[in-house]
């Protein structure tokens, strides 16, 4: 996995903008590019076989053993009915650290890490992304490309992901 800086980072040298620039991990889901706060990312792994959990939604593939902890794996492709979900050694799992929990998410691919100054992220218009706008922080421009900045914490702790118990959710929101 190469994490090359894009040319974009060089254009944000100006002082104040530089201070609030954040780094995002960019991954692809279908034809769209999404960015998530790099600080939420623990690691990136290949897909390995999971242990299925009975009566879980289809997009929750199951749990894996991540160095001794039991970590659920969510397939975002299934969740947002995007690309065909195939599993091979090149399938990528992003391990996230959210609200003191560890969650893995399967995506089509990870492209790079970019630095986006806060002012280059525009509020999301009403548009037809696969992901509900409630979980989108904004749109970031990277030259020709456009990155949809995702509020991954909100998404993963949301009820529709059914990853977190009601009780734990109310606790963490306090």
């Amino acid at each position: 996995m190469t994490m090359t800086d894009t040319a974009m980072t060089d254009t944000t040298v100006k002082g104040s903008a530089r201070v609030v620039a954040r780094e995002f991990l960019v991954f692809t889901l279908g034809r769209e590019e999404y960015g998530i706060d790099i600080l939420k990312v623990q690691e990136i792994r290949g897909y390995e076989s999971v242990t299925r959990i009975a009566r879980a939604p289809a997009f929750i593939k199951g749990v894996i053993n991540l160095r001794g902890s039991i970590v659920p794996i969510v397939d975002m492709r299934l969740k947002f009915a995007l690309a065909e979900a195939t599993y091979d050694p090149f399938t990528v799992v992003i391990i996230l650290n959210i609200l003191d929990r560890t969650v893995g998410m399967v995506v089509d691919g990870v492209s790079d890490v970019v630095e986006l100054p806060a002012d280059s992220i525009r509020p999301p218009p009403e548009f037809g992304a696969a992901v509900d706008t409630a979980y989108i922080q904004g749109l970031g421009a990277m030259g020709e490309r456009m990155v949809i900045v995702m509020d991954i914490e909100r998404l993963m702790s949301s009820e529709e992901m059914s990853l977190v118990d009601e009780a734990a959710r109310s606790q963490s929101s306090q």
Partner: protein
Amino acid sequence: MSFDMSQFHQVFFDETEEHLANMEALLLALPVEAPDPEELNAIFRAAHSIKGGAATFGFDDLADLTHVLENLLDRVRKGTMQLTREMVDVFLRSKDMLAALLAAHRGGESADPVAVAAVKAELVGIADGQPSATSVPESSLPETSPAHQLYTVSIEIATEAPDVESVLESLRAEGELTVLKQREEGTGSPWVVRLVSVLTALEVAETLAFALSPDAFHVVPGSMVEEADGFGLFLDDTAGGLAEQLVAATRTEEEAEAAAGNLAAALEDNGFGLFEALPAETPTSDIEGFGLFEPLESAQAAPVAAPAGQEAAGVRPAPAAPSPATPAGTAKATPAAESSIRVNIEKVDLLLNLVGELVITQSMLMQSGSQLDPGEHERLLDGIGQLERNSRELQEAVMSIRMTPISFVFNRFPRVVRDLTARLDKEVELKTIGENTELDKGFIEKLSDPLTHLVRNSLDHGIEEPDVRRRKGKSPVGKLTLRAFHQGGSIVIEVTDDGAGLDRERILAKARERGMAVGDTLTDNEVWNLIFEPGFSTASVVTDVSGRGVGMDVVKRNIQSMGGHVDIDSLKDFGTTISIRLPLTLAIMDGMSVRIGNEIYILPLSFILESLQPPPADVYAVSGKGLVVNVRGEYLPIVHLGGLFEVAHAKGTASEGILVIVECDETRLALLVDELIGQQQFVVKNLETNYRKVEGISGATILGDGQVALILDVTTIVRSNQRQVLASAPGQSVAEV
């Protein structure tokens, strides 16, 4: 009941150190003008825990000072006293003193008793100097009550003793003080006062010894002194012997005088009132501070009582009198520092996980190795075999760090029960069941405080006095049962007493008094849960045993922080059971791995009775719904696990697969699986750490190949099966077969 209490001292020291550090941090961060009630509560709880532990282990000087501190904190916490910067300063100094006393008990330099007494006097001074406006301070003091043992002691203080007023003042804080006779300057007749408090004569003597020279006062249990008459101890040789006992270490007058000379320089009041190394000289901790005044002791003290008595009679307590700063304090055996270290539990976890990884890697190597030609790769295969043994031993060793039998906690209680019952004048038989239930080390440490609270509560409020019990038709000897067992993927610890039970009306009344909105329609359980509110106590009397309303709040907090919960079950006059249910996070479990379709599940071995492959003729259909199997005349419902967990390719009938008979809550069930794989120990991992609760699954474990296997929650499966039966076939009987 003889066992070594000292094995727990280390834990107490460590815990107290933590509490003190915590207290200090909180005090330092406390905004004086507008203190956060939550933080005040936390400081108070820390003091309360220290006092509880210190009293349990007989470190009375610690308990004593903390008691005074706690009283003050309680008033601040309840808002009846305004916090000031000076008070915080004194609190911090008290904390330093407590730390010094703790260090002394650990075997270090002994604490300076003058400084301790000074800090205590400061605390008392604050308590008295600022009587509260809204509530009477005495309300927090012990008062006469049949439920708590009070002691009446008579005290005679020599005329020449300085500062008697302040001494009396401090005694007043301990209980009800009556001055029977004032000092009369000319005649030399002494002070005579009577104190009614929870302190025994011995404890009073110890308290006084901080401020007065030992031969300047005499303490005698009981109210044998009639008004206006001294008991003449200063003139007579006495059998009371308590004060003499305290000066037991004074060998000769010369020696004492020499010591006094050394100390005089350090003292403002002419060297009077020093009593160094008192804690070391007081007799065995067996009688110390647990309210047991045993006359036996005076017999022990008899040999020294005579010379001391002579001294008292002949010399009369002179202001520059001997300060028995004897070397006895240094003679106290310094216990060797225990060679244990406290390690952050996270480090052990990390270690355990790493070892788990190692074992998995090893089994991977093993698998690859098994395909090699043994002749060609002999050394490699040997090495792999050795690696297997080593890593297994390593795994066991690391696991053993965390797992501790609960007896480690339970063993503290015989002593607590013995001492408390003696103090409360009750008879209680303690029974412990399941001491060998192993649980996580982290839990053990956190359990001891809540359990101590629960046991104290049961003894103090739950179990009645023998004659009350007799009147109720119960055995005069109360029963207190501590029980630990595994149930449904949890560890349950129960504290059961056969006492009076909780008083619904009183709890409701108290809740209303505290301004809580409670209706009469609350269920019993909701009412019981009220006692977990901070500061909630239905005890009419606050003793230093319990009744401050701090206990249950601490219990609940501690248990919740471990991810568990507390349940109360109480029936009037039949008793109360408080059960603590903790998750199995890192418990080790014996389990049977079974295959269903292509998936592996773990069945906890403790539920399994047997497994069998029944002939098809023994399987019957019940009213077109479920199946039952005839096992030696008993018809057991069959639960098709493959169906329950939606497993593809699971075998559908009992004759193809195998039935595992499980029992839970006295209900038996046959679980249908494809195949039994084997029995082994599993490290239970919590599924809820990163995921949510899954019905029918109690946790997960990691198999030798690194895969995750889910652990079946037999309790839930059995219960949901019962519900299904009830829901699907009401009125249908199984006898239809």
